[in-house]
């Protein structure tokens, strides 16, 4: 990579207020809730309200980043929104986000989709823009209001949330330099949704070894080779988290202990936020990281691919922090039962 560095200059996270417990979903379908919850290592998931969608979550996350990190929206030269639940099939989320933030009209914009890794793909594109001096600041957002078919395994984990990551190159602002990034991609259809289909299809157990682990570990190993680092060189790590178990196993394989991933492992409390998952976990790590800390971040998107990042926290983080840490934001919640959940998620057919 070139001498010029790019990095994260600010971030914001939006998690909906409402939660449903895995045990409550299991109750409705006559399953052993405790057993399901333990098996997935997921206690509850965040539920978007009837007036929320991926676009509103994206805007609210980005507004927090702008406010907390003092970023002038007029400096934003690119907006990329990664999601598998864009509110429109045609008509971009990115342009709505730009207007809501008050950007100028001169910015690159497009919606991205790559199952759960479109948010980190946006980060890579923003990095490339910054490194080539095409823009001053780029905004990459991972946002989803994930849907699972009632009584499908995905229903227990499909959550809602968004993270907005601002990428820039000004050394005075960068709180975390991105030292290296790479992607590992194959044609592996383990999860998909056809046009007009309301819910995604998936291949059950096939989503594990040949899909998630092959790609996450594949990208991580590529990154380690490029950086000359080992798993143990990192102070923190975050992996895509379709459940609470896969990321723990991925970390173990790379020789990274649980203590280093705990801060960014949020699926047990908010569910799998799809495109939001790895970025939100990364933001939670940035909430507590110290100057000089090394962070490994690896997303995963079905289809399939993984994006890996080696990140070094700078001293700017001592003065540039989010107003409300992710873990604190998650504490504020309101439980809903299954019927209210159905109402908010628009799954009641006669409405």
């Amino acid at each position, binding site marked *: 990579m070139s001498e010029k560095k790019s990095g994260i200059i600010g971030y914001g996270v939006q998690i909906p207020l409402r939660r449903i417990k895995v045990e409550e979903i299991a109750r409705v379908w006559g399953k052993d809730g405790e057993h399901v919850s333990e098996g997935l290592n997921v206690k509850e998931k965040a539920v978007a*309200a009837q*007036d929320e969608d991926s676009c509103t979550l994206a805007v609210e996350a980005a507004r927090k980043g702008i406010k907390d990190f003092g970023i002038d929206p007029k400096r934003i030269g690119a907006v990329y929104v990664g999601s598998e639940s864009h509110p429109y099939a045609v008509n971009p989320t990115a342009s709505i986000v730009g207007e*809501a933030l008050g950007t100028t009209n001169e910015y690159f914009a497009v919606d991205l989709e790559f199952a759960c890794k479109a948010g980190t793909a946006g980060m890579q594109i923003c990095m490339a823009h910054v490194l080539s001096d095409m823009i001053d600041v780029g905004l990459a957002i991972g946002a989803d209001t994930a849907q699972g078919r009632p009584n499908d395994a995905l229903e227990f984990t499909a959550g809602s949330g968004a993270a907005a990551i601002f990428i820039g190159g000004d050394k005075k602002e960068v709180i975390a330099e991105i030292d290296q990034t790479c992607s590992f991609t194959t044609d592996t259809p383990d999860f998909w949704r056809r046009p007009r289909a309301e819910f995604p299809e998936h291949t059950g157990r096939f989503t594990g070894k040949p899909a998630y682990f092959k790609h996450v570990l594949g990208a991580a190993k590529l990154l380690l080779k490029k950086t000359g680092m080992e798993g143990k060189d990192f102070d923190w790590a975050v992996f895509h988290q379709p459940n609470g178990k896969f990321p723990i196993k991925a970390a173990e394989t790379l020789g990274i202990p649980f203590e280093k991933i705990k801060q960014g492992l949020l699926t047990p409390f908010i569910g799998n936020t799809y495109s939001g998952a790895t970025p939100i976990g990364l933001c939670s790590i940035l909430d507590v990281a110290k100057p000089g800390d090394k962070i490994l971040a690896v997303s995963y998107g079905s289809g399939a691919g993984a994006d890996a990042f080696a990140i070094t926290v700078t001293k700017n983080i001592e003065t540039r922090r989010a107003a409300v840490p992710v873990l604190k934001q998650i504490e504020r919640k309101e439980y809903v039962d299954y019927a209210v959940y159905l109402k908010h998620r628009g799954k009641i057919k006669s409405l």
Partner: protein
Amino acid sequence: MTVSAPMNWRRIPERYRLKGSYCETCGKAFFPGRVVCPNCRRKGKLKEQDMPRAGKIFSYTKVHVGPTGFSHETPYFIALIELENKAKVLSQIIDSEEEKIQVGAKVELAFRKVGKDDKYGAINYAYKFKVIE
């Protein structure tokens, strides 16, 4: 209620970012924006400006019977909000505990869908407010 696409489009800056106006002569802020200052008339000089994103509840009411498009959200709260620059906004209050929705309660701007959208139509995004602790 159906509003034409151009009409909706013109109101986007107002709905998304609380774009209003203020008078350079007397300093009063207006939301929605005005073209003539009611205080200064011809001497007024109006400039477009995004309103502050925080304020407090001036008055509120609980809606039990919602109009078309809002009937599935009842009961919900509507409040007249006094923004930090004294301009007033009428808005739905969301994600707030009922006992905290009081006159004088501090609120901040949120970005949400307004009303129920029809499956094939355009989505109406706009401001709503929530009480901050």
